[in-house]
């Protein structure tokens, strides 16, 4: 038959090799993407477990302890929202890398619970996914390494542009601002942020 002729066979093989290579590439690229994507929530989850331990140790020693030896940030506080059963460890905002492991206290913030504005940011699709369920009146509890405990009540949520955002320069009370990207279900990066403002509850 004609298809057994060597010339034809060689051409056919070449023809057959092309789609194989194409599909192989698709498979590999796809798997890489899956891996890349999956690493983020995995890292986020695992880091929180390690951080939880480091936080407990920090609290007992009274000074911050690194969660892993090469970490460039330290746990500073635990934030929890009882209604949403959320409890996460906040990192000191050293570099942008810290955001992968947990919510970070953004540089320029006042210490949480002190007079001034503390801004805590985290990814909308990992640690701060719960922000879409946050309602005015929700109680946010922040527990610091030193054992201080501050309660805040959510005043409201606002959508802001990151280049049009400012905090009060002369605050008279502790204010906590939680920030994440907006919209929550978007897949692209943008200038919009969702911020929730919480005022300190007077100590009972």
């Amino acid at each position, binding site marked *: 038959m004609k298809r057994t002729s060597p010339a034809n066979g060689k051409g056919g093989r070449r023809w057959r090799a092309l789609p194989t290579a194409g599909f192989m590439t698709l498979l*590999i690229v796809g798997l890489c*993407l899956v891996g890349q*994507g999956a690493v983020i929530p995995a890292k986020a989850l695992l880091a929180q477990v390690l951080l939880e331990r480091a936080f407990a140790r920090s609290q007992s020693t009274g000074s911050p302890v690194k969660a892993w030896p090469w970490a460039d940030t330290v746990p500073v506080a635990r934030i929890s929202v009882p209604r949403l059963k959320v409890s996460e460890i906040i990192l000191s905002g050293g570099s942008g890398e810290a955001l992968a492991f947990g919510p970070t206290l953004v540089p320029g913030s006042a210490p949480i619970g002190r007079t001034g504005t503390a801004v805590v940011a985290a990814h909308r699709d990992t640690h701060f996914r719960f922000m879409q369920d946050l309602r005015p009146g929700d109680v946010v509890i922040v527990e610091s390494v030193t054992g201080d405990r501050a309660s805040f009540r959510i005043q409201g949520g606002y959508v*802001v542009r990151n280049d049009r955002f400012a905090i009060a320069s002369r605050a008279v009370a502790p204010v906590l601002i939680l920030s994440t990207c907006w*919209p929550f279900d*978007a897949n692209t990066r943008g200038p919009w942020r969702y911020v929730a403002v919480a005022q300190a509850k007077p100590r009972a």
Partner: protein
Amino acid sequence: MTLSLAARRSPGPISRLRKDRAFLVAGLWAAILSVTMLSFASLAHARQLAPDNEVTSGSLLLRARDGATPSAVQLGTDMDVTVTGLTARVKVVQAFRNTSRDWVEATYLYPLPEDGAVDSLKMVVGQRVIIGEINRRAAAREIYEQAKAEGRAAGLVEQQRPNMFTNRVANIGPGETVLIEIEYQAPVRRLAGEYGFRLPLVVGPRYAPPGASAADAAATRAPVLDPRRHAGVNPVSITVRLNPGFAPTGIVSPYHAIQIVEGAGSTRTITLKEGSAPSNRDFELRWRSAENAPGVELFRQRVRADDYLMALVSPPESSRRRTPPVRELVFVIDNSGSMSGDSMRQAKESLKLALRSLSPADRFNVIRFDDSMTELFDKPVLATREQIALALRYADQLEASGGTEMLPALRAALVDDTPEDAGRVRQVIFLTDGSISNEDQMLAALGANRGRSRVFMVGIGSAPNTFLMNRMAEVGRGAYTHIGDTREVITRMSALLERLTRPVLTDLRVVTHGGDAEFAPANLPDLYEGEPLVLLARASNLRGSITVSGMLDGRPWSRRVNLNQAVEGVGVAKLWARRRITDAEVGQRLGQISAEEAARTIAQLGLDFSIVTRETSLVAVDRTPSRPQGASLTEEELPLNLPAGWDFDRIFGAPAPDGDRSSKAETDDPGVPFDLPQTATAWALSMWSGLGLALIGGLGLMILRRRRRRL
């Protein structure tokens, strides 16, 4: 071909091959579909990212740290100035071009000379010209708001400060251009034999102190473009038709390149060399007379049943050499954020020049202020060489940043330890750009505490607040000098220091012979070297003469002016009214008349002379609605340029002031820009698209393998 070949062998493989192919094609389609769907999904999200209206959130959404963005409405301004004798008629045409697809209301904040009288508004919409009418402020606002709601084109001119106005234009159609033409009358200034006028072109960002009304602070503030990111906006072209009545020489514009064309007789036409310039610094034009300046210049105008008179009386030049008096000088230097850049350099140089001019018998002190204040010495000290050296070093290390709390500095400067010391003249010299919005408080404090101190204002920078400067100098019985360029420091400061030595003419009085007249200003100022007395008057029938008298260098001096010599003047009546309005405003701040009385007087003058004042506004409304019902109206505040020489970061990107300020919470906290980090990983997108791709790849490979095994 292959199909027919295979068909000859057996029927089985054909169908199998067909099935495989169909499967493959279907798989590919599914893959393409899923990938497109994914990208569609992200596209949809991307669109969702920009909501139509920014969600406003009280104090959280503040002005942009990177400066404003250029607006959809673009503005071009043309100024046509006609100088006749000693008055200038200025026609300002602002073209608002809407480049967007929406109906827009544009708001533009702009400066005018504080002694100018805005008396005409015309609006051109398409082929129609609508003439504006003067109304009480609230009524005008109501007319405008109603027209705006009904979709009719409307224009409104409101005064925010005597030198700061707002134009609102409602219902500019998509792609449409609306022209707003305002006209004002302003006096030509004369100083030391030189004539000139100033066209302010930009309002510098003003500092509103804590406790100031939030509404007022908002009205005197506009978005500002960062000059490093955006080219200058709001271009302005200027034409000056100069007809001073004498042959002008030495025509100069210190801050803009100009072109001068000689006309018939003594007329000159002056235009900008570049055609137009961005409005980021004030335009100034000065000229001299080839002949000797006359001692008296008289202009008159008859409006309705009244005569109006403007007289410039120059005191004779003092012939004898005057020994400067022994003085106590308090220098107050502004080192707030708005002074950063060129202004701070000019202020420092000026201060140092003044310090070096002190004689050892003088006493002096230096006060610097931003939102805090420091006095160099507890009380004024003798100007010994060491003290001067200390003050010079102090001046050198000043840096501009922070807010502008001028009031405490003024109060401190007015504290007089030796109020009975007649042998020493007490003078306070302010070096500032006056970028504050609490002018009223300043004037009231100065009026109440001035004592024997005289206040001299040195306006610094490309767009100083001349209203504050002139009124402070007037209430403080001093003088105002402007330094707009570092090159001017030496000449202007030397002239000021010369004038500082002593007022030439004091205790001025005016007496009319034959008929009564209402004079303005009501309180005549003291005159310094080179300053003429500018007198405005209204009388039912102006005849006879007036006598101006006073003390010249401590000796009685008087001058009789024959009113028959007066030549026809343009706009004298408006200038008289404007000056009376200023008198009422000053009188109210000094507590001489009540607020109600001032408001009544100002409103009446505004309505009678059709002048925009704080109580009256001009409003123009188109009769036919243009915006279709249902179409929404976008509101835009036109951004302003930063005045030339200002440092944007020092004003808008100022680093956070130290955390524990002991001040109260305010509603008008300017806020500190805060960077919110990027907090989206998009891991879900990455995972799902990865899964999709892997699925296609895997399926494809599976099919190929099955096919190969079969063959």
